[in-house]
């Protein structure tokens, strides 16, 4: 009887849509991440990696730590437990055995299922023949077109009494991209990406074609070569103190996931125009040692003057003449290497990266940026380690730059009983430490000028319940932008997850954050540093019935500034999704109401979008937002996506956005379309 029930549960879980699982994971991890960083998050690469795993699932009997690390929702401890179980019992015979592994609850198992399968033990990588490319290779062509209905200021002629000036934006209001990917069972991959942002010229006198082109090729597991990349790629090593161009694990409701994943060289197929290398690299395996070397040579955008530049221009937008003048003005060469030595319970790695710019980076000096990188050469060296001892998992990295400034991060995970997992993490990043590619656990967006202590716990107190909690206290020892002196902060999170049945789950999340920032007092010569607190509470319910699924979310926050009265924000939303039975059509609908009195009360809520086009829009002011998202499979090979989103502001302001992106009115409508052809 029990087995029958389990089988039914698993069959229905297995039948879950991979896309929904990936989307939910992204929503869980990145809503909070978006809130804490000003940088654009590249969801595209993240989604691509998980989607590739879903299409080429991990064999539980032959998987390595590296394979499991692709599943970012698993904690390090959970990965160790799965590996340990497989090692202890020889072979995993059935997927149901996942329930016997310590530290995995039903929610985790549901998340894992779309990405794993049970295979025979000890399979080696077979040789690839030319005929395999045709027979098993998967080609994918993606075409995307976006258009905002209301014209922004930059697209309009400026009419004054004396003259009519041309629109600031040189191109049309359409966003357009075209991508091609080829994938042979994750062994051979190559592709091409072309993109034009809204406002960028496509066909005019000066410009013929797309603004951004990117190509990649990657071969995995051929002889001693673990990875060979050519064209555009990213590099990720260690804990990210030296180099991590992919996403690093930050603070989120996955409180134990503090160790970055997916180390090594990876193809780059995203449309982010800054954060990647262009060149070649390879990883060679010598038994227990993996050696990687890479070289990149590419032009980057910057505002140059007198053979130097003050900052790197990272947006990739080339819509106006002034933006075009920044395009490809600085040459950047990067040479890097990494060595990793792995034993069953121990791993140690060494990473060295050297960057050479053809002209000097020179900041206008202020106290806060005194230690920012300047000059044309940068060298970083890092040593990372990981050690498993009984129920302890110890890990960390220490890095130096050319000035011998130090950054170090060290942590320990401990699971005293199967229902409780704990993590503690200490970080110290010297004010004068800098690396152009560092990306690790931190409060601020740069790996510099910060020290902090983080502790997190995940507890499964009763069946169906999970408690996740973290506390992070940090200090910036040197002034930073917007804070004219050393400052401190605290961040706390408590989340209760409750999953009653397969089709119903909910959580309550409470977050409290205290930070310091400048307070401009006109009576004083210097800015005061005062604390700002933000507290928020969120409730989310997800309910599925048959082909319907529903999501309700409510969030309330209050912000207390020293200088202003307490402000509040409230948002509530209702999602309805329906997958038709007889036709390959899926519809998602959302209606969201929001009321955020101040920018500090803003909300980030994940919303469904086109394939690869994730959005966690920042919402503030008062108004409502709705969207309709449609996916229709024309044939087995061809699919269409369509999204229509509308935001209506109901406060007194009759302007949306600012500068060239300004829209007159209180409505903002966006249309998105995507076509995919797989063969």
């Amino acid at each position, binding site marked *: 009887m029990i087995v029958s029930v389990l089988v039914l549960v698993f069959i229905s879980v297995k039948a879950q849509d991979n896309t929904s699982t990936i989307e939910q994971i992204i929503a869980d991890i990145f809503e909070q991440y978006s809130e804490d960083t000003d940088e654009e998050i590249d969801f595209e690469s993240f989604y691509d990696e998980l989607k590739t795993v879903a299409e080429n699932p991990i064999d539980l009997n032959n998987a390595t730590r590296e394979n499991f690390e692709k599943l970012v929702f698993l904690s390090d401890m959970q990965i160790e437990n799965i590996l340990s179980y497989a090692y202890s019992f020889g072979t995993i015979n059935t997927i149901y055995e996942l329930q016997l592994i310590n530290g995995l609850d039903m929610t985790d198992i549901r998340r894992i299922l779309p990405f794993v399968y049970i295979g025979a033990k000890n399979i080696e990588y077979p040789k690839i023949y030319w005929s395999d490319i045709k027979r098993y290779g998967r080609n994918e062509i993606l075409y995307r077109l976006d258009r905002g209905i209301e014209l922004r200021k930059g697209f309009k002629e400026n009419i004054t009494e004396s003259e009519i000036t041309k629109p600031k934006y040189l191109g049309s209001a359409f966003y357009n991209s075209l991508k091609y990917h080829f994938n042979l069972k994750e062994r051979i991959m190559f592709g091409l990406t072309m993109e034009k942002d809204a406002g960028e010229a496509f066909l005019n006198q000066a410009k013929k074609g797309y603004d951004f082109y990117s190509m990649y090729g990657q071969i995995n597991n051929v002889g001693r070569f673990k990875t060979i990349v050519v064209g555009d790629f990213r590099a990720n090593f260690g804990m990210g103190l030296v180099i991590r161009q992919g996403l690093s694990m930050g603070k989120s409701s996955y409180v134990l996931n503090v160790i970055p994943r997916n180390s090594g060289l990876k193809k780059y197929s995203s449309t982010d125009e800054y954060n990647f290398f262009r060149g070649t690299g390879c990883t060679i395996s010598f038994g227990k040692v993996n050696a990687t070397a890479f070289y990149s040579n590419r032009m980057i955008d910057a505002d140059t003057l007198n053979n130097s530049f003050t900052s790197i221009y990272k947006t990739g937008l080339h819509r106006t003449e002034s933006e075009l003048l920044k395009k490809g003005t600085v040459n950047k060469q990067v040479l890097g290497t990494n060595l990793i030595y792995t034993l069953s319970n121990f791993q140690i790695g060494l990473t060295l990266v050297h960057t050479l710019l053809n002209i000097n980076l020179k900041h206008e000096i202020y106290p806060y940026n005194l230690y920012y990188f300047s000059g044309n050469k940068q060298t970083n060296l890092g040593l990372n380690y990981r050690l498993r001892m009984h129920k302890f998992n110890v890990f960390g990295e220490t890095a130096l730059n050319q000035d011998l400034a130090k950054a170090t991060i060290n942590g320990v995970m401990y699971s005293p009983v199967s229902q409780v997992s704990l993590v503690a993490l200490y970080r110290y990043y010297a004010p004068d430490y800098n690396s152009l590619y560092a990306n690790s656990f931190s409060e601020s967006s740069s790996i510099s000028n910060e020290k902090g202590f983080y502790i997190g716990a995940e507890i499964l107190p009763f069946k169906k319940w999970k408690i996740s909690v973290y506390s992070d206290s940090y200090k910036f020892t040197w002034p930073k932008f917007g804070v004219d002196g050393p400052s401190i902060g605290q961040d706390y999170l408590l989340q209760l997850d409750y999953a009653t049945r397969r089709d*119903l789950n909910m959580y309550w999340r409470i977050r409290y954050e205290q930070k310091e920032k400048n307070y401009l007092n006109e009576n004083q010569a210097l800015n005061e540093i005062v604390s700002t607190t933000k507290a928020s509470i969120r409730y989310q*319910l997800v*309910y599925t*019935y*048959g082909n*319907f699924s*529903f999501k*309700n979310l*409510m969030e309330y926050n209050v912000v207390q500034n020293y200088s202003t009265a307490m402000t509040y924000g*409230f948002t*509530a939303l*209702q999602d*309805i999704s329906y997958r038709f039975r007889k036709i390959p059509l899926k519809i998602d609908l959302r*209606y969201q*109401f929001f*009321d955020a009195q101040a920018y500090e009360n803003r909300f980030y809520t994940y919303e469904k979008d086109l394939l690869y086009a994730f959005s966690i829009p920042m919402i503030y002011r*008062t*108004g*409502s937002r*709705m969207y309709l998202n449609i996916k229709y499979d024309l044939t087995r090979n061809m699919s269409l996506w369509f999204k229509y989103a*509308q935001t*209506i502001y*109901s406060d007194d302001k009759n302007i949306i956005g600012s500068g060239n992106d300004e829209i007159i009115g209180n409505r903002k409508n966006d249309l998105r379309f995507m076509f995919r052809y797989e063969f």
Partner: protein
Amino acid sequence: MNKLIQIILVLLISTNIFSQLSLSIPETNTIANLNVADTRNWSAFSNPSNISYLKNSGFGFQYENRFLLNELSTKSIFANLPTTLVDMALSASYFGYNQYNEILLGIGFARNFSEKFSLGVQFNYSATYFGPEIKYLGVLFPQIGLNLKLSPKFNLGFSTFNPFQQNISSNFSIKRLASVFSLGCEYFFADNFVFRSQIDKEISSNYKFGVGFDYTMLNFLTVKLGAYTYGYLVSCLGLSTNFGSFSFSYNADFHPILGLVSIASVRYDLQKK
């Protein structure tokens, strides 16, 4: 003349307080207007998904009087027809007097999915009298509702009235229509004792939060008690009773500044399923 001044004064104050929210949408016969998750009662222009919880076809009439002034009353009629495919309902209301009035018409469709949840959509047409020259101008807008039965005792309701914030505009002025987001729940402590709670937000007005109880003392008699806050606290008391195919309801909202609001309704069920 005194009466006219009185009406204008009350209109001005109540318009400010209710910010047009209550003027255009009739109140429902659920205590404290906590109708969004209410699976036992349905009134004109309440959550359209709840149409599907009506077992019998029927029709009814509702009279809502504000502050004992006839000119501020809203008259509504409604009818519903359950069918095997989709349940339907018609609603109409009239607010105002000769010189100023608003008419609201709606046709709603709802479907109950195996008692697990119900979905409803209502197409409303709102027309406002702009004087003898322009006469009536109107606009069509949707109202969408959902009621999730998360357990036999607990359900969650959601409704949005005029989600696209459409307005009625003439050459000279814009009449802003209420755009309301509502979220609420219903919990059955027992079959004869129901708790409801709801939060409403009209996009340009204050939050409204209310709680209420229905207690069926006798088979034919239910006592209702509730309160809501809307910048001030309004306590509400009501009774409903049924005799054969007829059911009657009376609710009284005690407004701390403006006085009594009465909502009386009668419904006749054409057939019993």
